[in-house]
């Protein structure tokens, strides 16, 4: 690790006052400490914000607010989450290990970096790690890489499970800046596509910190599912994952949500398939047709063609599981 100065902030504005180009913030540390050990993150000063950010889950007029410092385990065990937003708990429990979930924060989950092997291997070129150095994954080992939304500069995927559920539920990210001003960013606008600037993962303003996540009340609590396909049964990143949620009335789909992890640089919404499902009868034929719509324009890399039929199966399975049969 590169030497750094360490300090602790007990309030968000105090933490924000320390923000500059060489400062980084640490909460759970499950990703950042690792990146620092590998010299991928090299902050000159590190600010501990575990006591600066809100750590509560609160019911609001419109729905729920999850503080940025709420750790994964209490988030997945929270009574309100389980009763009204169970998709969140399902996604969280599909990720990492119990130890890591005890440490990892909600805000940090949004800001975690890709797990592309070339991003972690500092001896290889990587446009995300060093802008303009080239992408090693495109001609290289890319079975974990993206199948949609990528560019000729980066084919990395976002590793989070929680974010897939948050994207499906149309959450928003409340950020606070140095002047104390807060703004809400729609979840699907928070993370970026790589384009020509793959070094930037998200649209968090340079002078701001994530304060909390807001989710509006919805009718998806009864019929939702999270399916994650990976190389081993537990404690592995997704090859593909699907968050599905249905609002059903007498087996007719009033509204549907479908999002995926492991397929793109950001949690990916299958909007066209969602539109198709609206008004249809919930059955296997409908689900297969929706899955076909989702996969129709995907383009795999040299080593991950398997992801496309795998995704189709995962979408159908997730929609089927929504019916709780």
């Amino acid at each position, binding site marked *: *690790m*590169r*030497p*750094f*100065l*360490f300090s602790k902030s007990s309030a968000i504005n105090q933490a924000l006052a320390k923000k500059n180009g060489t400062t980084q913030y*640490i909460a759970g*540390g*499950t990703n950042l*400490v*690792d990146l*620092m*050990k590998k010299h991928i993150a090299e902050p*000159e000063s*590190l600010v*501990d914000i*575990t006591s600066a950010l809100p750590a509560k889950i609160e019911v609001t007029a419109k729905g729920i607010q999850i503080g940025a410092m709420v750790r994964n*385990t209490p988030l997945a065990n929270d009574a309100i989450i389980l009763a009204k937003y169970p998709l969140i708990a399902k996604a969280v429990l599909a990720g*990492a*290990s*119990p*130890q*890591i979930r*005890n*440490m990892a924060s909600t805000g940090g989950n949004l800001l975690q970096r890709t797990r592309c092997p070339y991003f972690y291997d500092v001896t290889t070129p990587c446009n995300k790690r060093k802008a303009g150095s080239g992408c090693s994954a495109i001609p290289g080992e890319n079975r974990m890489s993206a199948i949609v939304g990528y560019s000729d500069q980066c084919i990395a995927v976002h590793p989070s499970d929680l974010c897939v559920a948050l994207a499906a539920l149309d959450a928003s990210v409340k950020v606070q800046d140095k002047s104390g001003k807060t703004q809400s960013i729609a979840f699907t606008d928070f993370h970026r596509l790589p384009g020509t600037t793959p070094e930037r993962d998200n649209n968090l303003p340079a002078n701001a910190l994530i304060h909390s996540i807001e989710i509006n009340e919805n009718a998806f609590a009864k019929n939702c599912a999270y399916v994650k396909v990976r190389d081993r*049964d*537990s*404690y592995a990143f997704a090859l593909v994952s699907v968050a599905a949620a249905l609002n059903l009335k007498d087996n007719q789909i009033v509204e549907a949500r479908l999002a995926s992890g492991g397929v793109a640089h950001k949690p990916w919404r299958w909007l066209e398939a969602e539109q198709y499902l609206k008004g249809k009868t919930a059955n296997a034929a409908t689900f297969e047709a929706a899955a076909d719509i989702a996969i129709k324009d995907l383009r795999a890399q040299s080593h991950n063609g398997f992801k496309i039929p795998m995704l189709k199966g995962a979408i159908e399975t997730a929609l089927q599981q929504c019916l709780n049969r």
Partner: protein
Amino acid sequence: MKQEYNFSRRFFLKTSSALGALAFIPKGVKAFYEEVKNFIVPKKEQLPLTVSINKKSYAIKADTRTTLLDLLREDLNLTGAKKGCDHGQCGACTVHIDGERALSCLTLAAMVPGKEVTTIEGLANGDKLHPMQEAFIECDGFQCGYCTPGQIMSAVACVKEGHTKSVAEIKEFMSGNLCRCGAYNGIVESIQKVAAK
């Protein structure tokens, strides 16, 4: 006996004049050199930390980069927690922080003051082993033993959390601890045994 010195007259003149010249370098140049040095070699910061490990308080100075795992193993000689991968992938370094299992290799020591850390060394009651330690011996919950301290700390938490309703649930909630010997069946048995008590 007269001692032979191997310094030549040439060496003496060269070094003494170099040292003499150094003394005459203006302060500004020296300050500039310091600035360049500080720019290239980042400053190391030593933090005074008071940490509580196994209900014992330690006052210690540590570099900001020190992880809890290194603090335990290198500074406090508590070598029970193991360094397997050092990247949060194997679970060998699992300890309890405020009663919850956590990875000490991804925890900065600077963030531990004010919290209570329990390591495998703090589990037994004097000479009486913790029931989970006894169960691991009885059920052959290990072979080489390297991952065992992490497995046991995780297993104790797994029982406390109540994730022992089925073999599948135990396996899911022990997935953060890898065992290269493959003693998994013995580990699951040990947990079932303690959970049934």
